[in-house]
């Protein structure tokens, strides 16, 4: 008994001593702490990708990943706690970001934004993209680096099998779109003999101002002046009322889901998967064709479905859609103003803007999360086991920068040559029919936030939303909405337009 006990004790001693010894042997490697927003499936502990990342950088990274569902709650506590991690995913370029930077939580990166400290971001980021993280109300300096997406070509996806069944072409103009949507709703495109389909569903989860629809009417963002240099709020442009009229017509004819105002985020996707809708507009997911095609529900519900990508709607008589894009930023990273590891933190951000780190965080480690990476198509092949590993160890959420301008897209979801070909074809088709008009959002200009707060406090924004939706549903007359827009909305937003004018905002574009 005693002997066994002694043996167990000895083994335990050796076991506890081992990690200590190895730790000692590795020497001076420091650890940087980081706040990151990561999905639920992502595993932070013993993640081989994070270890490989640390090896590449020369220091360890300890990641705190709060619940993605409540990231902001936890982040706000951290910001108020006085104990900030070295590097933070801020996930905000609005009023919170301005306040935190003004309060002195973030390192001013402008002195370091040069070839000595941050050569990769300097090379990769454009001035427009940087403008999203400049704090005009403070000193115009940058206090974080943006994670950018360079080519978000909004598009509209159609059920090709439905179009073929009804002998229709992929629509290009609003009129054609409405025609197709109505046909999908009334002519039984799935041929099941039942009246169980709609053309499409307008989701209000992000408001109805979808770029790929507005382009069909020539609606400008409020920040962009007309050819005479006059700023008009988007809602007060005649083209915007044309857009609402178009929606109202489609609602009246039954081309779109009559209970669209109940749709929550991504719920319209579900109806598309269920085969109830034949049209789905895609704001963001550049890989949509693959994602939808490989969706199990979609395959089960629509075994014979074929998809085709359509371009953003274009104005009658034009051959290309003019779509207004502001710099597409998906969150931003800041450095703690009081960090002990300034050099390392700068190195961390700098390396985040390389292909190497980007591909590592998106695809992981060869053999563990993928079999082979194809540098030309920018996609990787994965076995079933590697796909499961990839769920745990990599995510686009983990990236520091998302896409590099000159390299094209990383196709994280495409696993087969067929998928990649499908995506590439759609991507090129949409790209050829899109004229990207760049502009800058004005939200961070000094004074704008106060006006927005006043509008919310007066309840003008909710009244507008109520009237707009009622108008689309045919519940109120045109005069009521027009009179509200002219008499209440226009004066309320005038200060914002004045600020744009005073700053000559987007005047060159």
């Amino acid at each position, binding site marked *: 008994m005693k002997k066994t006990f002694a043996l167990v004790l000895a083994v335990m001693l050796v076991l506890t001593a081992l990690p200590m010894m190895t730790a000692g042997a590795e020497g001076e490697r420091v650890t940087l702490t980081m706040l990151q927003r990561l*999905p*639920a*499936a992502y*595993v*932070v*502990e013993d993640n081989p990708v994070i270890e490989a990342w640390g090896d590449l950088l020369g220091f360890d990274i300890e990641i*705190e*990943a*709060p*619940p*993605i*569902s*409540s*990231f*902001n*709650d*936890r982040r*706000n*506590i951290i910001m*108020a*706690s006085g104990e900030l991690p070295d590097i933070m995913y801020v*996930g*905000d*370029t*609005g009023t919170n970001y301005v306040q935190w930077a003004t309060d002195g939580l973030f390192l001013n990166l402008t002195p370091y934004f040069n070839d000595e400290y941050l050569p990769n971001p300097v090379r990769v980021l454009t001035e427009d993209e940087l403008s999203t993280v400049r704090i005009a109300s403070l000193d115009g300096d940058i206090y974080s680096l943006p994670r950018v*997406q360079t080519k*978000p070509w909004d598009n509209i996806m159609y059920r090709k099998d439905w179009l073929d069944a009804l002998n229709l072409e992929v629509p290009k103009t609003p009129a054609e779109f409405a025609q197709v949507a109505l046909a999908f709703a009334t002519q039984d495109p799935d041929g099941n003999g039942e009246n169980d389909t709609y053309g499409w569903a307008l989701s209000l*989860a*992000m408001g109805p101002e979808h770029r790929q629809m507005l382009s069909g009417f020539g609606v400008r963002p409020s920040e962009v002046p007309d050819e005479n240099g006059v700023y008009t709020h988007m809602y007060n442009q005649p083209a915007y009322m044309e857009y609402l009229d178009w929606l109202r017509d489609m609602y009246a004819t039954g081309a779109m889901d009559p209970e669209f105002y109940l749709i929550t*985020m*991504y719920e319209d*996707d*579900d*109806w598309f*998967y*269920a085969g*109830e809708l034949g049209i789905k507009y895609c*704001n*963001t*997911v*550049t890989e949509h064709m693959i*994602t939808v095609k490989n969706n*199990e*529900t*979609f395959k*089960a*519900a629509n075994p014979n479905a074929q998809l085709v990508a359509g371009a953003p709607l274009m104005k009658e008589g034009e051959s290309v859609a003019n779509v207004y894009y502001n710099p*597409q*930023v*998906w*969150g931003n990273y800041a450095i703690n103003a009081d960090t002990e590891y300034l050099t390392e933190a700068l190195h961390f951000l700098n390396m985040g803007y390389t292909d190497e780190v980007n591909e590592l965080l998106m695809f992981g480690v060869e053999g563990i999360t993928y079999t082979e990476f194809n540098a030309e198509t920018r996609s990787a092949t994965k076995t079933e086991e590697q796909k*499961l590993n990839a769920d*745990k160890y990599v*995510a*686009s*959420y983990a990236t520091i920068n*998302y896409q590099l301008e000159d390299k094209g897209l990383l196709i*994280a979801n495409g696993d087969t040559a067929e998928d990649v070909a499908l995506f590439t074809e759609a991507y090129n088709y949409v790209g050829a029919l899109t004229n990207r008009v760049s502009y800058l*959002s004005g*939200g961070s200009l000094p004074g704008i936030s106060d006006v927005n707060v006043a509008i919310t406090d007066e309840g003008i924004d909710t009244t507008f939303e109520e009237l707009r939706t009622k108008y689309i549903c045919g519940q109120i007359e045109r005069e009521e909405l027009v009179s509200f827009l002219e008499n209440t909305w226009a004066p309320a937003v005038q200060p914002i337009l004045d600020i744009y004018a005073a700053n000559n905002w987007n005047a060159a574009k």
Partner: protein
Amino acid sequence: MIAANKTPKRIKRGKDDIAVSTISYTVAGLFALVCFIPFLLVIIYSFTPYDLYLKNHFDLWPERWTLEAYEMVMRYQYIWSGYKNTIFIAVIGTIGSMILLVLTAYPLTKKDLKGRGLIQKLWIFTMFFSGGMIPEYFLMRSMGLLNTLWAMILPGLLGCYNLILMRNYIEGLPGSLEEAALIDGANDIQVLFRIILPLCLPILATLGLFTVVGYWNSYFSAIIYATKRKMWPLQLVLREIVFQSGAQEMQQNMVAEENVSAPFLLKMSSIVVATVPIMCVYPFLQKYFMTGLVLGGVKE
């Protein structure tokens, strides 16, 4: 129940008897049925392939069944540590809470105890006013409780609502027993544990149920106090699994490239996974508040 045991002696049932029985059996039964519908649907949905659900929301017997949703839930690494944490929080929290509850409530039933009014008002005040997240976070940090399960247990140990219900219940007990014991020379502690506590089983079962369910369902304190994912309770893990990302980014005018969209099925199976264990507690407690106590020896 005693009253019920005596009725068989009566052969003829009065009109009142039939009326009361009819109403109570029918109305309670119907309401119970209506309440059962959502739970039944959740269970059925959790085994239904999503495409079939989308086609028909009210199909109670789908043509295909699937275990996929459960397999998906179980695949998440943090489910098991979540169970472990939640069970610890719920068990320790409820035991601690009941002890503190009895000790705090009993003195407040003594109407002539000095300071009683003040203490009660202090408690009521906390129903409305709290310092908010930031000072509470600082408190936990100064106590060294960040990233421990204690941070998720301690702040919820005792609430004013339970305290008032407990006090009210004890006040409703016949005072004669207590007086007799005090005259026999027992001190307050002895009275509480020997006389009062055994009579409190119905309310302890009730408040214990509220507390254990409260702890079981809680997740918010973990967001604030836990920095490591392996410290998350089950409900937070499940919340994460079913969370649909995107909405948050959109509100901040950011573009989410990746749509972390949780299948609807996953939502359903996660409810089953989270609620079935806690529901097993229910029958054990139910008997205490569904059956009348026999107050032996309370006769005046």
